[in-house]
């Protein structure tokens, strides 16, 4: 029976002909998934556009409540993590396992920094009474629909933060597998596709930052 007795390297699943086919397939699958993610956020961006068109002055006033400095720091942190994840993939390609593990750890650390800063930002808002929706009690913004802006703000940043958390989990899992020596220059598919996911998470933040914080 020709088709299940060929000599497969252990990482190639039985239904693939060879390692290349498996790699290409995994990558294509991830790209398709990313397209799906873009449409997921697309719905929220759409809501954003509609409400910004209706209440332009609200968006300007509300953006002043957001801390541009920490938003900018977070942007730099995430861009940095995109760089380190790319370096992790590069290390895997060059068979440098130490570099792979270190870069993965730095990426995780940067992602955690992002979440901590975001946590402080949220905590500050909550102190002022800027809660989502019905729980909104802040009086410093003189606009009847102020809560709608923050509804959108919390949805966008909250869903994004959830993606960051999932990313941290994934990268940590990749790190554990790297420690067990599962990857080498022949096989690093999971590293590559997790990297793709992480780049998308960064990219979305790069859109969120100016759209929410930098409205003039």
């Amino acid at each position, binding site marked *: 029976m020709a088709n299940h007795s060929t000599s497969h390297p252990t990482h190639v699943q039985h*239904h693939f002909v060879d390692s290349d086919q498996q790699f290409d*397939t995994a990558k294509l699958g991830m790209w398709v998934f990313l397209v799906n993610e873009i449409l997921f956020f697309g719905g929220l961006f759409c809501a954003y556009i509609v409400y910004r068109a209706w209440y332009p002055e609200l968006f300007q006033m509300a953006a002043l409540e957001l801390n541009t400095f920490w938003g900018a720091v977070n942007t730099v942190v995430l861009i940095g993590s995109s760089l380190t994840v790319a370096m992790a993939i590069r290390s895997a390609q060059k068979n440098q396992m130490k570099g792979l593990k270190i870069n993965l750890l730095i990426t995780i650390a940067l992602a955690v920094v992002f979440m901590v800063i975001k946590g402080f930002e949220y905590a500050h808002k909550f102190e002022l009474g800027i809660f*989502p929706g019905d729980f909104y009690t802040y009086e410093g913004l003189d606009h009847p629909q102020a809560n709608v802006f923050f509804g959108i703000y919390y949805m966008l940043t909250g869903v994004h933060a959830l993606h960051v958390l999932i990313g941290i989990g994934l990268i940590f899992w990749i790190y554990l597998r790297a420690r067990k020596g599962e990857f080498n220059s022949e096989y690093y598919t999971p590293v590559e596709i997790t990297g793709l996911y992480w780049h998308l998470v960064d990219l979305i933040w790069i859109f969120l930052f100016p759209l929410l914080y930098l409205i003039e």
Partner: protein
Amino acid sequence: MATAEVSPASTGTKKTFKVKRYIPSENPKKTFFTEERGLWAWLTTVDHKKIGLMYLGSVTFFFLLGGILALLLRTELLTPAQTFIEADTYNQFFTLHGAIMVFFVLVPSIPAALGNFVLPMQLGAKDVAFPRLNLASLYIYIIGAIFTFIALASNGLDTGWTFYTPYSTESTSSVIWVTMGVFILGFSSILTGTNFIATIHKLRAPGITWSKLPLNIWALYATSIMQVLATPVLAITLLLLTMERFLGIGIFDPSLGGDPVLFQHFFWFYSHPAVYIMIVPGFGIISEVITTFSKKHIFGYWAIALSSLAIAFIGFLVWGHHMFTSGQSAVATSVFSFLTFLVGIPTGIKILNWVATLYKGSIEMKTPMVYVFVFLFLFSIGGFTGIMLGALSADIHLHDTYYVVAHFHYVMMGGTLIALLAGLHYWWPKMTGKMYNEFQAKIGAALIFIGFNMTFLPQFIMGSQGMPRRYYNYIDQFTIFHQTSTIGSYILGVGFLLIAYYLAKSLMSGERAGSNPWGSRGLEWQSTSPPDLHNFDHTPVVINGPYDYHKPMEEFQLGLANAHDEKH
């Protein structure tokens, strides 16, 4: 031993392979049923065939549930006043009927159940690209189902399957459970779509170029694209709705400065493509069955293949036709109306090509083919009435009446479900290795055809006379239509019971089906019935198109000859 020059999917350049003919055994000793047996093996399997069958079982279960609800609804409508249930109960029943039939039956039915089974086989692959994700999608489906059952057991749901705001943010029924259930279900749909796209691109057997893909694969490809692009929008919509209920974030709430029509836009941006997610896989089945039973090359291969993609594309631009009466601007309604007419074109192209395929074919009226004719008849009515609804002036009158109810039942039940039955009867021998009773199957098809038309034709008439949808009583004028409709639905119910009966019986005492009982040229038929765990015991090589009925069978049974053979 022969050689063939074909191009493998992974490289695209032509290569010469040594091939030989593999004739499938008519009486296989090892099949995917006999290998990896036992409950645990099934529950943890990554085999696309077992997963497909488990999906088929789940979908059948939900169809039964949705069907019982439908019969209860129709029974309530036997008399103009209250017959036996309260108005609130009626609201709950039609909501659950709609939500179950759309999200739990029609959306997953053809791709996840039949598609899962035949797609890898038609591609000559051993499995889908990501077998574990495939299993995950089944479990995600089941988790989504559990959420819906929790809703059923608590306060039910009475918003209609469309969950329109503002009512859905205020209703005291379990909106959150159901929306979360459907949200979770969406992931199962996305995973199936992603899996199929990757499989079709990367796992085709040597020789299967894009121009030799079976049309069923083209249809599933177009469907998968829509699933991946549309479902996330539904997901975010339902998430926003949930947040609206939990936190009152106000995006859809006019009293907080939000806009309920925005919900409708979001919802239909998914749900119009979703109607094509439901029907396009049905188109794929029709193309397969009609060629097999006409013993003839499909007419207009590329027209049918590309019109699926055209439908997928235009289908994303017409969602506004559900909101002609929701206060859209006049410009928007006109544009949406025009685009709605456009979407009829690729659909019409398909119908004409199928009919042209019949011309001068040697037509064999086996049960699957009977269903194809039922499909052509019912779906055409559904499609034409859709065009009428797309006309602005007519829709102002017909919107939210039974006319719309009849339209979408003709396309969803008369189209998708009939195509599903065609596919089920077509692939049943392949999936189970057993033949059903042909005579009983034809009686079943006749009952369904008669019952269906009796149920839904009167609805066009009363709808055009002003009978609104979603009411549990009505004025006397409509009595005769409603009663005819109810009796028709009972006939339909009997038809489905008959199908369940003879299919179940065939499993126990049916005749053995040969590997290729219909004499099809399709690759999935060039394996044993039921297939081996790895689908083929060789790597298939394809040199002809899937509908080349003028070429001899032996050219369709080729596979890579391996080094092992040469030694002997």
